[in-house]
Each structure stands twice: as C-alpha cells, then as structure tokens.
C-alpha cells in the first residue's frame, strides 16, 4: 500500500464522517424537525393567564348598573419556598390581619395556595415591595354594583370565583364575559419571560357592555314607592313593572325587599325576581281578557244592562258573590265594580274555546320573551278539561297561573291598540371596540284585538280610575286607564284565605296616547287589602315619575 492509497483511504473516511453528520443533520432537521420543534417549543413556552373583566351593565341612558374592578389577591407557591416560617413572620408583620390558619398554608406541599383575597391595595403594594420568594399578588376581578340594591334581583350577581348567578349577569353571560385570555409567552430556562405572542389588546380583556332598557331613575322611584307602600301597609313585599307599550321596553322591574348584589351571600330568600318569576292566580285584573274578547267579538253593547243577581248567584255547582251587590249593571259598571257575576255572564257569551284562544293570544302560558332565565311561563289548562266552575273562575282570574309580567303585557297590548309587542329588557350590546349589536331575535308584534275593542277597553279602564275602584290611581291632568286587582292567595292549607291578598293595580297613561304601562303588586298587605286602596296610589306615583322621565308629558 503506497502513500497515495493511504491518503485516499483517510480522506475518504473523514469525508464519510462529514457525510454521516450531514445525513444525520438532514434527518434531525428535515424529517424529525417538526416533532423536535414541538418539544422545544413546549419547554420555551409558558401559558400566561390574563385577568379579564366582565362588561358593564348600564341603563338606557348609559348610567352604570354593574361594573368590574380589579382587586389584588395574595397567593403563595409553597413548593418554591425555602424558609416558610421566615416568610410567614415577614408577612404577618406586613399584614397583621393574616390569621395563623392562613399562614400555615405556607408550609403545605401544594404548588399554589390563596392566602388572602381582595386585599386593600396599600397592603398588597407593601407585600409586593417585600419581594418575597414564592409570594405573589395577582389581579382578580370583582363585580361591583354602584347602586347597591337597585335592580338587584334583575341584575343577579357574580361570585368571588367569577360565577354568575341569576339575572342579567347569568342570562347574558356569554356576552358579558370576555374570552378568558391565556397567551403563549416565551421563557428562558430560568423562567424569565422573553416575549409573548398573542398578548391580548386591552379591549380583548373586557367583555361586551350590556345596555338595558331599564331607566335607573324610574327604577329608583319604583323601588322607593314600593318600599314605602310595603312599610305603610305592613306587607310582605311588593313588585312593580313599568314598560313602554309601543316598544315593549321595560323601564323598571322592581322587587321589594331589595337585595344588594354586592353582598349576595345574604338575602337568599329575597333573591326571587317576583315581578317576572312568581306565578299565581291573577284575580280580577284578568277580567280585562274577558271584556276585551267580548268587545272584540262584538258580544257586548255599552248601553245594555246585565242582570247581576243582586250580588249572589247560586249556580248549583257553585255560588258566585260580588262585593258590590247590584241588580242591573252596564258592562262598564261590571268592570268598574269588578262584578264577578257580570263577568262570568259575559264570558258565557264568548264560550270556553274562543275564550281560551284569546287567553293564549294575550300571551298567557308562554314565556314573555325577556330572555331572562327566571321568567315564568305560567299555566293555562286546556278548555276540554274545564268544568263549569273552572270556566267561571277563569273568567274572573282564578284557576290559571300567570306572572305579573304577563299581566303587564296584557295591559300593554290594550294600550297599544290591541297589538302585542313582546317585552324586552336588553336594549343592545356594545363590544369594547364600539360595535353595537343585538343578538336576540326580533319578535314580530301580534294583533290580539281589533283597534275598536282596545278602544272600548281603554274607555272602561278610564272610567275605573275616574269613578270606580281605581280612583286613587288618577293623575291630575292625565287620563289614566287601569284596573284594580285583589286576588286571594292560597294559604298553606290550600284554601283561599281572606287575609292573604295580592293587591294590585295595572294600567297605562295617558289613556289617549299611551306612553307608560305599569303594574304594581303588593304582597299580603295588612288591614284593608283592596288593590284600589293599597296599590293604586303607588301606581300613580310610579307612573308620574315614569311619565316625567320617559313620556315627556307632565
């Protein structure tokens, strides 16, 4: 073997070595590249969670009803701590309110523990300045309701862990709550951040703003008046609905006693939004359906006199009594004096089936359409199942279940010339970038009554407030149409109890150009319980305020 060949052999071997390296590089980079890259990225990247905030809830004028603020919470990473006892000592010094139980969490084997949540910002800053290893302060969202109890039941609330419970908070959660942002960031092997990808813009961290149709001022007056009325009559509670008949917009949805969503842990019983969720027998207010249907079908004549059995009518299968006993009454008088006997006689002219259809057309037994989860459907049984007594009972408001909202909707339909415009509480939603949208389907108005029938109804409702049971609802200078209601509640024994009443007043104003529909219910007033006595004055005060705010009449 001469020198030349030996040189060739060596150069070939070394070149082979370089070739092998190149092939291996190709394999690693071009064949296994993406898999290796993924592994590499896994160790460089950390997911950072950004605290995001629910959108505000505002009233129709943009006045704040609910908002979110950032609060500081103190956490510890016990596994990263070398001397938990020393850390505990330093912490205790900086924040004396820390209990021993809280400090003991430092010695646990957990990787993450909350020490204290929702700190005073001064304290959190002091602790941050200590720069303790394994102790950190993070920002959390706290929901804040600046008007305290105002609209409490309707707004709902949000727990410390960001869970929405009830009301607008829950129903419109998906618009209010922003996408939870966790962005990928690059970190070095010593866990120092290098750069982040997909870091959210500040507007991404805010949920959409919900504008309600509620008017904060009307809401406030409604709650005040209700509270006074409830107090004056020693009642259990009360609720009121104020809405605009033409658009179906709810201006106020008041429930007394109030709850304060800022302190939602308490008041668990009062959380119910009675105005929309409670169903019960509607009582005489429901006579509007009977009258309106009879007018619509041309079954009553204003001049006619109907025999009212001198206040007591024994039908064999039941006895119907009137509070005001008369021999003959015009339809208007029947309505005004709230005669059960007269009302049933009118209902008999309509017949079960047509009457049932009319009830359904008014929206009873269906969700009114606010899209709140608490809304009640109520219940109307099928006419085939009605016995003779049931038909009589339904005609004057017993034997069916309805919510106050459904009754307000009925009044609104009459005020609206017989057209049912579904109620709504969501005005619109605004994204953080300013874009406005409304995700709810637009309901089409439904004609329930002829214009003439609605007119006739308005007339008898006006006479009710001018000379009937609803006189106390009259507003000086404004024609008011309304109907009182005094429904007996079923006691716990399952019987109607004379002393357990729901006193209500439902109506609209001005009668000739309806701007405001309202319904006020007072739950179990003591003493005189007539709706005209208990609820009508409250109704007047609320509607006056609403007209000033929205109707531009007074």
């Amino acid at each position, binding site marked *: 073997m001469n020198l030349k060949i030996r040189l060739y052999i060596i150069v070939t071997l070394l070149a082979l070595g370089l070739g092998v390296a190149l092939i291996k*590089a190709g394999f690693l980079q071009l064949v296994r*590249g993406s898999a290796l890259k993924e592994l590499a990225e896994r*160790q*460089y990247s950390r997911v950072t969670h950004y605290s995001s905030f629910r959108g505000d809830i505002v009233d129709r004028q943009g006045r704040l009803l609910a908002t979110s603020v950032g609060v500081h919470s103190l956490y510890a990473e016990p596994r990263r701590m070398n001397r938990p006892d020393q850390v505990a000592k330093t912490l205790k010094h900086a924040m004396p309110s820390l209990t021993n139980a809280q400090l003991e969490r430092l010695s646990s084997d957990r990787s993450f523990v909350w020490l204290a949540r929702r700190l005073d910002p001064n304290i959190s800053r002091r602790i941050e300045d200590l720069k303790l290893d394994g102790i950190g302060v993070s920002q959390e969202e706290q929901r804040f309701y600046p008007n305290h109890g105002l609209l409490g039941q309707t707004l709902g609330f949000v727990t410390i862990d960001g869970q929405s419970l009830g009301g607008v908070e829950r129903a419109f959660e998906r618009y209010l709550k922003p996408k939870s942002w966790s962005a990928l960031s690059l970190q070095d092997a010593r866990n120092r951040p290098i750069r982040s990808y997909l870091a959210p813009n500040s507007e991404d961290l805010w949920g959409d703003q919900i504008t309600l149709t509620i008017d904060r001022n009307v809401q406030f007056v409604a709650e005040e008046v209700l509270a006074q009325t409830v107090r004056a009559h020693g009642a259990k509670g009360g609720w009121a609905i104020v809405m605009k008949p033409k658009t179906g917009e709810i201006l106020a949805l008041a429930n007394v006693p109030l709850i304060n969503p800022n302190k939602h842990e308490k008041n668990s019983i009062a959380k119910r939004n009675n105005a929309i969720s409670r169903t019960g027998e509607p009582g005489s207010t429901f006579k509007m359906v009977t009258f309106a249907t009879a007018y619509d079908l041309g079954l009553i004549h204003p001049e006619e006199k109907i025999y009212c059995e001198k206040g007591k009518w024994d039908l064999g299968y039941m006895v119907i009594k009137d509070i005001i006993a008369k021999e003959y009454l015009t339809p208007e008088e029947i309505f005004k004096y709230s005669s059960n006997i007269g009302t049933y006689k009118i209902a008999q002219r309509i017949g079960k089936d047509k009457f049932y259809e009319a009830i359904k057309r008014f929206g009873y037994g269906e969700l009114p359409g606010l899209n709140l989860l608490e809304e009640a459907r109520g219940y109307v049984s099928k006419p085939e199942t009605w016995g003779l007594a049931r038909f009589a009972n339904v005609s004057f408001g017993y034997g069916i279940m309805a919510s106050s909202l459904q009754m307000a909707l009925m009044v609104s339909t009459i005020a609206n010339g017989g057209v049912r415009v579904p109620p709504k509480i969501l005005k619109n939603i605004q994204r953080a970038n300013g874009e406005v949208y409304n995700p709810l389907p637009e309901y089409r108005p439904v004609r329930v009554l002829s214009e003439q029938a609605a007119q006739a109804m308005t007339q008898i409702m006006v006479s009710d407030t001018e000379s009937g049971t609803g006189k106390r609802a009259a507003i000086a200078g404004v024609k008011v149409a309304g109907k009182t209601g005094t429904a007996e509640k079923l006691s716990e024994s399952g019987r109607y109890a004379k002393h357990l009443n729901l006193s209500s007043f439902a109506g609209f104003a001005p009668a000739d150009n309806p701007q405001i529909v309202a319904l006020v219910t007072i739950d179990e007033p003591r003493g005189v319980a007539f709706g005209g006595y208990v609820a009508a004055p409250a109704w007047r005060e609320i509607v006056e305020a609403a007209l000033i705010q929205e109707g531009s009449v007074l």
Partner: protein
Amino acid sequence: MISRLILISSLSLLLLGIVIVYSSSAIVAHLGYHDSIFFLKRQLFYALVGVGVFVGAQYVDPAYYRKYAYYLYVLAIALLVLVLVPGIGKSAGGAARWISLGVIRIQAGEIFKFALVVYLAMSLAKKAERMTLFRVGIVPHLLLPGVAMVLLLLEPDFGTTVIVALVTFVMLFIGGARVAYLLGAVLLAIPVAIQVISSSPYRMARVMAFLDPWTHRQDSGYQVVQSLMSLGSGGWFGLGLGQGPSKLYFLPAAHTDFILAVIGEELGFVGILFVIACFACLLFCGFWVALKSKDNFNTYLASGLTSVIAIQAVLNTFVVMGLVPTKGLTLPLVSYGGSSLMVACLMIGVLFRLARGLKQ
C-alpha cells in the same frame, strides 16, 4: 487555487463563528456580565490574534518545524505537566486545562495537538522505509503520545485524548505503519478505554445518556436532547439569526462545544450544510496539499494538520447530533475559545504556507 480555497473556507468558518458566538452568548453575557458583547469582544480579539498567527506562519519555512520538532514536543509535554501543578493550572468545569499567564490563559491540550502533528511528521519522515518495523514504526510513536494521553486524562480532558489517539493512528497509517500492528494496538486500547470510561462516573453517565438520551433528558442526557431539539427547530432555513431560544440557558455550552446546534437552529439545515461544506473543502484541500507535496515531511504535516481539524470537526458534529457521547470538543475555527481558535489558525496558516509552496 488550492490555497485560495483554504483561505475562503477557513475565513468563512471564522466569520460565521464570530456571528454565532455573538448570537448565542449575547443574552447570557448580558445577564452574567452586564455586557452583551463580553464574548464577542474576546472572540474578535482571538480572531485578530489568530489572523496574526496565520500571517506569521507564512514567514516560517516548514523545514523549521522539522528542525525544532523535538523541542516543540517537549515544550508541549511540559505544558501538559504544568497544567497539573496546583497554582499554575487553572480549572474550569472540574477540569484543569489552562495555564494562566496573567491575563492570557493557554489551553495546553490545544498546543499539544500541533506539537504532536509536527513531531509525528518529522519522525515518520525520518523513519521512512523502516516504518513497517514494529520496533521503529509503532513503539516510539505510541509511547510518546501515550505519555501525553495519560497527562491529558489526568486533567481530565477526554476529548483531546481521543483526538490525540485518532490523529496518531491516522498519521501512523499514512506514514506506512503495518495495519496489523495498528489493529493490534486498537485491540489493546479497547480494555484501556473501557477502564478509563467506567472508572469515571461522569463518563459513564455520558455513555448512558448517549445510548438513550431521551430517558435521561432531565440529567445526563439533557445536553444532547437540548441539542437535538435545537437542531430540529431549525428545519430547512432556521429560525433566523438571533431568533433561537435554545441559548437562553436551555442548551449548555451553546457558544462553545454546541455552537453547531445553534447554527442548525438559527440557520437551519442550510447553515449546517454550509459548515460541513467548508470543512469538507478544507479536508480535500489539505489532502491535496499532502498528495502534491514532494517532501515526505510536508505530506505528513499537511495530512496530519488536516486530520486534526477534520477529526475534531467530525467528532464535534457527531456529539452535537448525538452520534457519539459528549466529550467536550470545540468546533475548530467556529466555537468560542482563544487557544482553540489560535491553534486552529496556526494549523490553517501552516497548511496555507504548504499550499503556496506547491506552486514554486
């Protein structure tokens, strides 16, 4: 032509090295020394000195190396001994490899590699036909480097030991030693190598990590796995200069022994291809010089110097790609490091001088 290729490819590697040293060390330097160009400055300085050495080598007739080969060799061995003397030798990472001369620290192993090649070239040329004899061809040429290898292992510098062993065999083979004797020596070396490896826990761990890096990725296999991931991240064209995250404490020795991984990560397969092409070019040019040299000493010197660079390049790429266990070797001309760079420049300088000599 050949000399120009040598110049172009080695300059390319040198310049690429400076860029990548900066890319891979800037952040670590900033955090460690509050000076992001801490390593860049030094590498630039070494490169300048290296160029000086290269230029200086042009004025030295290769015959002088032959003449002073013994002295050079003895000096190099002496340095290897000095490294082991406490107070003079400086250690880094558990190994004493440097001799401190005030501000300048010299890695004795690097100088020895040059001295070894010169000595072997001289000796092989002198022995010539008698190389086939065991007594003449094998014994002295294994004994003298053997002493150095023992000294190197004492530092310990396993990487350089392997280079020395391989270069010795390559040069003996080229010099005409009988293949049977060489094979016999290899067979004898195997138990010694096994003993050397198994006696040291960290070498054992490296072997285990080499055999199955992914199961040991948290400890002994960490570096290799990081290296593989860095390379893999590069794909065809890399993440872009400076864009690779591996140097952020993930990949140990990113600017020294594993600089090729950073090249692969930031410049991709194309970058690796470029580096390997440059070394291949040096390899072929070096052996071309060896082949064309009329003088046997020049042939052995050229092929020996080229072999040192090529073997070290191959081993370094193999380590980075997980083909052989980790052993602490720089990539010649590219990796950060003064002694390594200057000795590489010296070797290239001598090679260039020999190439230029061919024309005359």
